[in-house]
């Protein structure tokens, strides 16, 4: 366990450094001069362009710039937005609660709904219940989330008038976005839970439990299900990332505030410090969540520490 943990932590540090290099080099990959892009339409003399370049430290070597970028980022300084001149960290922290609320609500819905459907399907394997559940899951995987959001708005807000159409704040403005965001993840979770139950039911310990004369429902709840849910931990970690990404689109659909909408405006406005800050922040969160998930998984499944 200790060795596994150490190796896993080392890999995380390496990945985070790689991520920071990639994010840092974004400005270098953009065609054209970043300073000109930043100054935008303003007509400026050559001298003031040089001044800006010096102020931003762009006249130094790339390595020097990267070290400064990393040093600042570690201390929570991600630079200032080119457009609003506000510190990027401040913008992210302002928008974070809304995005986090949506992501967690979507994830909660996905886990509850996905595990339930997956269990029902797995327990009633090959019956019509199973087939229906898996068909619904297939639809869930295939449905574009942003379109589902539009349909829900159409039915529940426009026609029925039950919930406000768009905006942020209050539980009634969270339900539809969370449902929209979580559906696809719940379909993926349902498929995995089902497959995992089927696999557990084939194991020797289940045969033993049955041979002992335990009722089928006891075998299921006390033996198979507990083990079948272990892989779900990993999936939830992976889904957290896609939900965080998915929130970007869903925020646009429901015109909610949040990191995703800021990112979209930043990209269309070519506001690079803000884009870099958001991408770096999201990747770090994603990597750390997966690290946590792997540690939990290793504790749940002692076999893993052998590797």
């Amino acid at each position: 366990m200790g060795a596994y943990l150490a190796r896993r932590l080392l890999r995380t540090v390496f990945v985070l450094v790689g991520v920071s290099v990639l994010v840092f080099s974004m400005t270098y990959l953009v065609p054209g001069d970043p300073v000109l892009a930043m100054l935008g339409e303003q007509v400026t003399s050559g001298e003031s362009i040089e001044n800006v370049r010096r102020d931003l430290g762009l006249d130094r070597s790339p390595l020097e710039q990267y070290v400064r970028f990393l040093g600042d980022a570690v201390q929570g300084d991600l630079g200032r937005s080119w457009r609003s001149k506000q510190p990027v960290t401040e913008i992210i922290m302002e928008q974070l609660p809304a995005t986090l609320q949506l992501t967690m609500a979507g994830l909660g819905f996905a886990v509850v709904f996905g595990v339930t459907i997956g269990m029902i399907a797995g327990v009633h394997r090959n019956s019509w219940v199973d087939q229906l559940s898996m068909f619904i899951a297939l639809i869930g995987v295939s449905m574009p989330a942003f379109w589902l959001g539009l349909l829900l708005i159409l039915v529940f807000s426009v026609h029925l008038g039950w919930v406000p159409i768009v905006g942020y704040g209050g539980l009634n403005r969270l339900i539809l976005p969370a449902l929209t965001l979580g559906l696809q993840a719940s379909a993926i979770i349902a498929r995995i839970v089902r497959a995992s139950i089927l696999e557990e039911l084939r194991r020797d310990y289940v045969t033993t439990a049955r041979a002992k004369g335990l009722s089928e429902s006891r075998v299921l709840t006390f033996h198979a299900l507990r083990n079948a849910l272990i892989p779900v931990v990993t999936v939830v970690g992976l889904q957290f990332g896609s939900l965080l990404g998915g929130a970007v689109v869903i925020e646009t659909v429901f015109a909610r505030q949040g990191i995703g909408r800021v990112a979209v405006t930043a990209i269309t406005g070519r506001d690079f410090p803000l884009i870099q800050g958001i991408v770096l922040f999201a990747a770090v969160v994603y990597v750390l969540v997966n690290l946590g998930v792997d540690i939990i998984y290793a504790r749940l499944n002692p076999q893993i520490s052998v590797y």
Partner: protein
Amino acid sequence: MRQMTAPLSRLTSFFRELGKRRGAMVGLAVFLMLVAMAVLAPRVAPYSPNAQSMERILSAPNRDNLFGTDQYGRDIFSRVIWGARLSLRVGFVSVAIAACVGTLVGLLAGYYGSRVDAVIMALTDILLAFPSILLAMAIVAVLGPSLVNLMIAVGIGAIPTYARVVRASTLSAKELQYVEAARAMGCSNARVMIRHVLPNVVAPVIVLSTLGVAGAILTASGLSFIGLGAQPPTPEWGAMLAEGRTYIQDGWWITTFPGVAIMLAVLSVNMFGDGLRDALDPRLRTR
């Protein structure tokens, strides 16, 4: 002669296996219909996708406009048909980018091992650290929003998945006796990789690519929807939904039909892909 029959009978048994799966066949039929629609768009679409008509603004589905018209009086049915071209092209091209680069890189990593492997796997680790849609957004941010850049972005985002799967298959194929024999006989590395190892990794790549087309269509339409892909007035399905959402209270048909089109495309590919996976490799089934 005997050498010929072995792979041939494997192929027929594969098709027999695939034909038994009704879901896969339905998926394939629907998908081929969409492909036909895309290819024949200029002939089947009743109107030009961008033809505006002042008299027909926001009219509900009727005999002249099967799917109704949008806020500029454009025929939604025609736009959906033309949209098939764009969405399918995005799906195929981005998957082609991901599958080609991913297979090559995975082959190299698995075949040469040691340092090559370490570097390539480290790079895929880093790429996988970004939530996929965010990675695509970052690439679009660098290249600028357009349909072509969208394909590149979605394609690059999927490379690590292919690289990992191909690497794993290469590692096991390398141990096969006839591959070892080929190496012992002095075949060049390139020849061993292409003639002997590659055929062993094709099956998982085909399955991944098929399911990948579905994923690419979803991601690309999502990015177009938030304005980072196809730009209006392009009749791309995601962009159509983005343009129509302002008029969601004026008519259900504007935001319904492009969405149905995306779902049908993705659903049909997924159904076919699931069947293909089961028929090609039963071991992959639980994933």
